[in-house]
């Protein structure tokens, strides 16, 4: 790693801190180049569309560019460099074989005919079958590209389902628990639904009485994450689903926390009408910073007619095709389908990685995955309990939520503790979520961390808790050993700078 020394005023010692990497624009000098660019004759382009001023692109040599991106990669903290306990995100290790298999499909074109992609369609069809089996559902759409898009897709499906029954105009509300991911109410609002929130009870479950009184003939559906965002299994999930169904509404399963259920329980058996899977979490494909992901939607048979089209269909002779894009016979129409969400196969590269992971594990390995994730979370929680408060005193599933309320009273908040963790060499957990826990720290170790790493993380958390008692100012001052220290999140949100400004050029592009 490229290292420079920096004097840290309040430590007063020379401490190696990774150097920040300048922008390409700052490294550039006029006349440098890495490639010989062939100049084209611009005569064919009408004068009106020809550029008047030169493009202000940075000019660099090839090794400069390679080093720039390598330095950036060295500054990165990833699951390949250390434990990444970011609760709700399932930052498990991504086996490299996944990428190797996915690269076989790099040349696939999304609009390629079924005639030249029979193997690809067979693979997609098999992925659908596997996901249906894992979730206990009947049919799967591979199209949604992420969890939130799958929520949106599912709610469009709910809307189409109610419309088919002549109830679209009356069923205008979606209910979500107060522990829900923020994307749940956002997806509902994007579909034009009104959102009602129901409280959690003292054990961290959906308050069944509150749910029953919120239900009515105007409710289209209920969105539930199980295990919920507190990392707790909904103890009365069957009663919850029965109550929603009794009101004529549908139950959506947010599969964000599916990792805990792998091989242990199936949403389809618990009463859900549909569930999405964040395959990038549960089935180990690299994610973070916005993608790429995939969020296949798995549904019971009564919702199938409304799934996005085209569907991948398997013929009796073992051949495959898209039902709406046949070249040799009359294609199927859209029927009751909500239409297309994403072209044909969704984010296929991500799905192939998930397929590889599932095949590598097999059914036995899948069961171990869920159980080991739960074991790791319970082990880690046991180590942290002496120092941190537990929001709900129940054994967690694959993740748990502690509260730094005690530390806050002693002078350092959950944010301060999370920043101090960076100096200890760990990525921070998710903080201030779920919203119903004050000073929340949501920790998800995943099944891929060995016991020694869990011990080291717990030791770091306990050291920080001790430091909060004796010297909270030092914890508020963290991090000290990162290239940048406390970032000014408030100014970044209030006055964001979203592009590089060329010095001396006002309003430069």
């Amino acid at each position: 790693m490229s290292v420079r020394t920096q004097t840290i005023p309040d430590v007063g010692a020379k401490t190696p801190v990774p150097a920040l990497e300048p922008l390409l624009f700052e490294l550039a000098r006029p006349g440098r180049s890495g490639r010989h660019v062939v100049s084209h004759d611009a005569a064919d382009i009408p004068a009106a569309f020809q550029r008047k001023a030169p493009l202000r692109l940075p000019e660099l040599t090839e090794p400069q560019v390679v080093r720039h991106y390598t330095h950036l990669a060295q500054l990165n903290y990833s699951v390949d460099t250390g434990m990444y306990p970011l609760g709700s995100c399932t930052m498990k290790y991504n086996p490299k074989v996944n990428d190797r298999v996915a690269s076989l499909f790099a040349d696939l074109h999304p609009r390629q005919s079924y005639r030249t992609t029979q193997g690809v369609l067979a693979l997609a069809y098999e992925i659908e079958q596997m996901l249906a089996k894992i979730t206990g559902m009947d049919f799967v759409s591979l199209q949604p590209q992420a969890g939130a898009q799958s929520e949106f897709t599912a709610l469009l499906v709910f809307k189409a389902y109610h419309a088919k029954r002549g109830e679209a105009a009356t069923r205008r509300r979606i209910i979500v628990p107060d522990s829900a991911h923020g994307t749940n109410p956002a997806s509902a609002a994007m579909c034009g639904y009104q959102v009602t929130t129901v409280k959690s009870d003292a054990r961290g479950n959906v308050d069944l009485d509150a749910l029953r009184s919120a239900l009515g003939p105007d409710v289209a559906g209920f969105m539930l994450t199980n295990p919920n965002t507190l990392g707790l299994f909904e103890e009365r999930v069957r009663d919850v689903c029965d109550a929603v169904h009794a009101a004529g509404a549908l139950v959506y399963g947010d599969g964000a926390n599916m990792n805990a259920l792998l091989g242990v329980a199936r949403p389809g058996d618990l009463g859900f009408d549909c569930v999405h899977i964040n395959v990038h979490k549960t089935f180990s494909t690299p994610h973070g910073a916005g993608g790429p992901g995939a969020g296949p939607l798995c549904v019971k048979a009564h919702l199938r007619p409304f799934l996005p089209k085209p569907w991948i269909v398997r013929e009796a002779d073992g051949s495959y095709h898209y039902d709406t894009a046949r070249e040799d016979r009359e294609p199927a129409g859209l029927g009751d389908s909500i239409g297309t969400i994403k072209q044909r196969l969704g984010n296929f590269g991500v799905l192939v990685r998930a397929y590889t992971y599932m095949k590598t594990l097999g059914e036995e390995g899948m069961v171990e995955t869920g159980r080991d994730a739960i074991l790791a979370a319970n082990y880690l929680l046991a180590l942290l309990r002496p120092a941190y408060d537990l929001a709900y005193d129940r054994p967690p599933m694959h993740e748990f939520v502690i509260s730094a309320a005690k530390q806050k009273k002693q002078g350092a908040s959950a944010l301060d503790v999370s920043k101090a963790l960076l100096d200890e060499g760990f990525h921070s957990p998710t903080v201030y979520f779920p919203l119903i826990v004050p000073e929340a720290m949501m920790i998800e170790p995943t099944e891929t961390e060995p016991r020694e790493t869990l011990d080291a993380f717990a030791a770091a958390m306990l050291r920080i808790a001790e430091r909060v008692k004796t010297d909270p100012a030092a914890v508020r001052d963290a991090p000290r050993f990162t290239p940048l220290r406390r970032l000014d999140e408030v100014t970044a949100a209030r006055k964001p700078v979203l592009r590089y400004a060329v010095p001396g050029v006002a309003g430069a592009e």
Partner: protein
Amino acid sequence: MSRVPDDLRYSKEHEWVRLNGDTATIGITHFASEQLGDVVFVELPEKSASVRQFASLGVVESVKAASDIYSPISGEVVERNVKVIEKPELVNTSPYEQGWMVKVKLADKGELSKLMSAQDYRAHIGETAGAGGD
């Protein structure tokens, strides 16, 4: 301790109301602004929009979370605080004065009885401030 002025009425969802004739000024409480942390964005209804008691009035976003503001009373918006949209930090620095959100012409004074006194609100946040959610 959070400041809870005696002359205001309060909602469970941490909004306050100041009555002046048949016009009510609405904002969020000091407790709410402390829970949110630094506020970075405020979204408010346009003038002459109608709002319903306990229905969403707007959105306040902090570095931690985005939250709905619920209208503590029903009525028509007669003025909105443009300054708080331009300078959301007023919600933190002056929640009961410069950080007000909207002024509403009351539709039904009877609704005020569904709100809490300062004393009751203090008890309310005493409960919700503890660990374990509410």
